[in-house]
Each structure stands twice: as structure tokens, then as C-alpha cells.
């Protein structure tokens, strides 16, 4: 049973990552910086529980806030570029953050051992859950409370006036601007919300794996983050959830019996999905 709980944890965390890219994609921006906000949330929340002895919930809140602040700060300069330029600018930012953590040492001695992030070695012993005796099932439920909360929030946002504004910017910036929509405010706020979601996801990730290192947050993770909403389609948040289940549960775990040949089929199935449904599995019909 623990296997399924573990799988549900992975799906939950990747859903948060995908949703953080979803809201940014609604405004038509492809951002490869989501892994960086995820990393910031992971390191911040981990340091707060391990070094400062906080409870995990406020630590997640702080990680999320830091992710949001960073995303907001990135949102302003990144606004000036579009399309591939934005992809590369956010990629550069993401790699910059990853390399920051690669060089980041902050260790203190605690109970005879030194804990905290140590550059390339990574950040070990983020043991809040085992120390407080949480079982796998409880951790899974804890993660899913956040996933469902974020999904409900985004679902509600999508149906609000704000959601319509986000989508109008994504469809046609000039038209949106001509009816008096403030592009800066819309894009930066979407980026900020995305950063907050990625920050929560990162904090949860740090606590359930107990060991994080800079290499976890590379371009591959950033690409996965934008791939989920694109594969799932941008019509509703459930598309992203479905894509995460499709990728993590079906392609990664379900095809494990294929052993080393799994990734070949993985690639082929994503290609097939994108060619048959270019707007995502649950996106609108037609090309």
C-alpha cells in the first residue's frame, strides 16, 4: 500500500508544479523558471524546519511567500520579452538559481551533527515528517490537502473576472490592451501566483524526500513543469492533473515493467498525444 501512497505523493507534488506553470501559461507566457521557484520554496521551507525548528505549515507558507516574491521580481523584467526570448530568459534565471544553490553553504551544528545546505553535497536530513512520526498515508493526505486547495483556488480564479482577463491576455495581447487591460499587472500577478504555488510544492517536496540537491531542480524539471499543462490542455486545471497522472502514474510507474525501454515508449506516447491533440488531452478540439 505504501507504494501507492508514495505514488500519490509524487503525483500531488508534480501537480502543484504543473499548476504553477498553468496559470502563467494562461497569459501566454512559457516560463522555464518554475523549477527555480520550486527550488527556492524547497530550500526555504527545509531550512526553516531543520535549522529554525519551525512547524512545517508556517515553513511552507514562508517558502511560498519567498517563491512569490522572487517570481514577482522576475516577472517585471521578464515582461519585456516574449516567445522564445522569454523561454531563454527564464531558463537563464532558473539555471542561475540552481547554481546559486550549488554554491550555497549554511550549516549549523545540531545535536552533534552539522545540518543545513552544503553546496554540491545538497541538503540532507530534512526529517520533519519522520521525527514527528507521520506515516506515509498522513504525509500523502497532507500533500493532497494543498493540491486540492490550490486546484480549487485556480478553478475558482478561472471562473472569475480575473480568469477571463488572464485568458484574454493569453489569446491576444493587443486586443486585451485595447480594452483597457493592464498587461503588466496581469502578467506579473500570474507569475506571482505561479511562484507561490511552486514554492508550496517545493517545500512539500523537500520534506517528503528528506534530501534535496541543486541537480533536482535542473532544466529537466522546468520542462516537465510546462509540459504537464501543455499535454493536459489549458481548458481546466483538471487537464494538468490528468497529464501528471498520465505521465507519472502511467508512463513512469505503469510502464516500469518495460525496464530500460520505458523512456522510448514514453517519448512516442507524448508525441502521439501532441500530434493527435495539439491543444492538449483536454484542450479544445481541432488544430
Amino acid at each position: 500500500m505504501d507504494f501507492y501512497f508514495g505514488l500519490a505523493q509524487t503525483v500531488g507534488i508534480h501537480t502543484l508544479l504543473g499548476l504553477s506553470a498553468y496559470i502563467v501559461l494562461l497569459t501566454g507566457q512559457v516560463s522555464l523558471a518554475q523549477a527555480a521557484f520550486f527550488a527556492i520554496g524547497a530550500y526555504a521551507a527545509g531550512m526553516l524546519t531543520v535549522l529554525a525548528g519551525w512547524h512545517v505549515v508556517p515553513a511552507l507558507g514562508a517558502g511560498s511567500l519567498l517563491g512569490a516574491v522572487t517570481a514577482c521580481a522576475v516577472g517585471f523584467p521578464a515582461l519585456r520579452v516574449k516567445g522564445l526570448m522569454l523561454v531563454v530568459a527564464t531558463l537563464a534565471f532558473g539555471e542561475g538559481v540552481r547554481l546559486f544553490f550549488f554554491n550555497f553553504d549554511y550549516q549549523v551544528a545540531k545535536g552533534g551533527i552539522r545540518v543545513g545546505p552544503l553546496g554540491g553535497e545538497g541538503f540532507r536530513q530534512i526529517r520533519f515528517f519522520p521525527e514527528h512520526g507521520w506515516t506515509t498515508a498522513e504525509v500523502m493526505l497532507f500533500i493532497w490537502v494543498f493540491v486540492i486547495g490550490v486546484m480549487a483556488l485556480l478553478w475558482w480564479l478561472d471562473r472569475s473576472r480575473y480568469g477571463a482577463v488572464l485568458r484574454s491576455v493569453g489569446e491576444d495581447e493587443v486586443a486585451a490592451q485595447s480594452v483597457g487591460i493592464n498587461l503588466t499587472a496581469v502578467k506579473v500577478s500570474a507569475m506571482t501566483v505561479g511562484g507561490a504555488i511552486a514554492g508550496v510544492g517545493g517545500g512539500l517536496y523537500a520534506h517528503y524526500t528528506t534530501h534535496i540537491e541543486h541537480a533536482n531542480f535542473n532544466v529537466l524539471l522546468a520542462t516537465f513543469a510546462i509540459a504537464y499543462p501543455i499535454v493536459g490542455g489549458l481548458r481546466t486545471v483538471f487537464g494538468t492533473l490528468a497529464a501528471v497522472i498520465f505521465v507519472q502514474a502511467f508512463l513512469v510507474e505503469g510502464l516500469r515493467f518495460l525496464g530500460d525501454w520505458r523512456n522510448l515508449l514514453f517519448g512516442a506516447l507524448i508525441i502521439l498525444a501532441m500530434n493527435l491533440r495539439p491543444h492538449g488531452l483536454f484542450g479544445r478540439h481541432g488544430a
Partner: protein
Amino acid sequence: MIDFLQNTLDGLALGSSYALLALGFTLIFGVLRRANLAYGPAIMLGCYCATWAYLKTGIGLLFLALIAVAGSTLAGVYVERLCFAPHRKGAAAAAMVASFALWMQFEELATLALPRHLYAFPALYAGGPLSLGRLTLRVESLVMLVAAILVCAALWRILYRSRFGTAVRAVIDSPAAAELSGISVSAVSLQVFALASAIGGLAGFLIVSGNEQVTPMLGMWSTLKGMLAMMLGGLGSLPGAIAGGVALGLREAHSQWYLGPQLRDFIAYLLLFVLLAVRPPWMNTRSAY
């Protein structure tokens, strides 16, 4: 002073490999207006084909180079047909995700064929470095530099002095108008993909034989460096790609010397982010070649 000159020389050599990678990227981006994440992994696959052939048969360098170029070209054609041909109109994001899926496939293929993380590759030149006064230059670097210049010259000849080149430039200018005047956009983009991947394969071969080793990381590395060099030179300009590659190489060699390898990349990426956000005037020109 001598350090500065030596760094400049090293940077030029490094930059010429980036320039070759950026040239291939720019060709693809110019014709398709799509980001091809599988560009580097296709090069990596070509180099793995060459490594595999070397381990099985031990054939000479010239054959290995041919195999690397042929392998990369085939992989590139595969990418174009699967990821970009179906999404020529609209769905840019779908094409990008599809090319990401092929990246995963290529890495898997490479590690299935050769499961160790690192393989030795025969050196391009066994002797020591050349010395020019107090400066030294590796022969591999010199070969890279000469190859970059030759490829640029050949590419210029193809693009500006042949019917195929005219068709390519027409498609870059306006795919719709090119289609109307009887150019097959589909065929041109396939050919450009093959050409760009062949250039990438050559660059990949020179890089791995210069480093005397090959790892699956080559794929991500090539995509990153090629994309960055292309950006620095302004999107979609061939002279810009060369300038961007050389600038990236110079910058890396100098900051390595003054800041050390750890800080080097960190500062590089932050600078690049700022540069892209500020967008100096040469980056705004979307001049077609």
C-alpha cells in the same frame, strides 16, 4: 597581460564550438520559428553512434566524423518529421513539448546502447599543444576554429549563391509567399533541419574528440550553449550566431580565470537574464540573415 591574451585565445577556441552549435540552432529557428529542444540530444546521439562504432570496430577518425554527422542528421530528420512537420501552423508549445519527449527518447537510446556514464573517445590529435611565443594553443582548438570558419563560408555560399539558399531565405521571409511561388515549405524545412543537424554533428564530433570523452550530458549541454549563443547574437541572424558564440566563449574563458569555475556560470546566467530583459538594440533586429 600574457594571461589576458591566453584567455582570449582559449575563449576564441571555445567560442568557435559554440558558434557552430548556434549556427545550427539559428537555421532551424529562422525557418521554423520554433524552439527545438531536441537539437543537442540529436547531436549527442550522433556522437554516441560514432563512439559505438569506435568501440566495436576501432575505425579511424575520419569515419567516426562521418558517422557522427550522419547519425545527427538522421536524428534531426526524425525530430523534424515527428515534432515540427505536424505543428507547422500554430501550437508552438506542442512542438516544444514534443521535441522534449524526443530528448528523453534520445537519452534513453544512448544509455541503452552504451550504459556507462562516461566513454573515452579517440583524441583528434595526440601531440602536445602548439606554442606561439609564450602563448599556447591546443591543436584541437585550432581545428575547431578552422572548421567554424569553413562551415560559415560554406553556409554563406549555400544560402546566398544557390537556388536552395534562395528558397530558404524566401521561407524565412514569409512562408506563405514562398508557398505561393511554388516553394515546398515542408521540403525546405526538412532540408534545413538536416543541414543544421549535420553542422551540429560536426561540432559535436569536434567537441567530444577535443575532450576525449562523451557523456549523455552532451545533449543538454549543446542545447543550452547553442540557445544562449543564438540569443546573445540576436535571434535569427547568422553573423549574430557566430558573434554570440565567440562572445560566450570569451566571456567564459575570462570569468573562469578571474572568478573561478563555481561562480562563473552563476554570474553568467544572471547576466544573461539581465541582458535579455534589458534587450540592447542589436537584439531587437530580427534581420533575416
